[in-house]
């Protein structure tokens, strides 16, 4: 039952998204110079970034949803 519900919802979003494919990007690829700047990266520090999450996880009860990636130059 739960499976059918999930698949049903997703088929619905399929229909919705096929309409959405007409949305034109409002930030053009040639307007992304600020977003492509390294200071606008969600993950600037690689190893150092993941280490501090480990420090917090070892001392706090909360865990998860610590990081992400995206934005950038959108090239290719």
């Amino acid at each position, binding site marked *: 039952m739960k499976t059918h519900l999930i698949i049903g919802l997703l088929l619905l979003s399929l229909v919705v998204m096929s309409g959405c494919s007409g949305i034109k990007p409002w930030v*053009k690829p*040639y307007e992304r*110079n600020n977003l492509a*700047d390294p200071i606008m990266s969600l993950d600037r520090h690689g190893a150092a970034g993941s280490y501090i999450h480990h420090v917090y996880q070892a001392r706090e009860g909360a865990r998860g949803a610590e990081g992400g990636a995206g934005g950038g130059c959108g090239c290719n």
Partner: protein
Amino acid sequence: MKKSIKSNSILRNFVMTVLISSMAFMTQAKELSGAAPDFTLKSNQGKNIRLQDLRGQVVMLNFWASWCGPCRQEMPLMDALYKKYEKLGFTILAVNVDEDSADADGFLKSVPVTFPVLYDNDSKVSEIYAVDAMPTTVMIDRDGNKRFLHRGYKEGYEIEYEKQVKKLVRE
């Protein structure tokens, strides 16, 4: 009491998804038709360059930015292509879309190119050409018509570029 992982069915689903989905992908080069819109832009060679003045030559119009990795990657390859086919009536116009041209010039100092670089600081020409990927390359034939479009750059695209230039130069 450990639960077993239903890894086999998950793996199979996953592989199927990727294989079937890959059927939906488009190829990287597209054929175009129609006149290439005219424009005039300042160049790094001192004077302004107008597209219409280049009628009779094959023009490879490339939109790039200093902050775009793949754009920077293809620059030396484009330079090699330019040097090889220039005498046969071929030119490259590299339209830079950086808001601040100093960024572009900084890059060109470390990676110099011999073809003209044009400055489209307010993106007017990028809009006219409906640039929707970085980089974008449009091949224009001797009659000033758009013939081929490349969106993005990946290693190996330069082979396609050369094939198309060869073809257009012979017309």
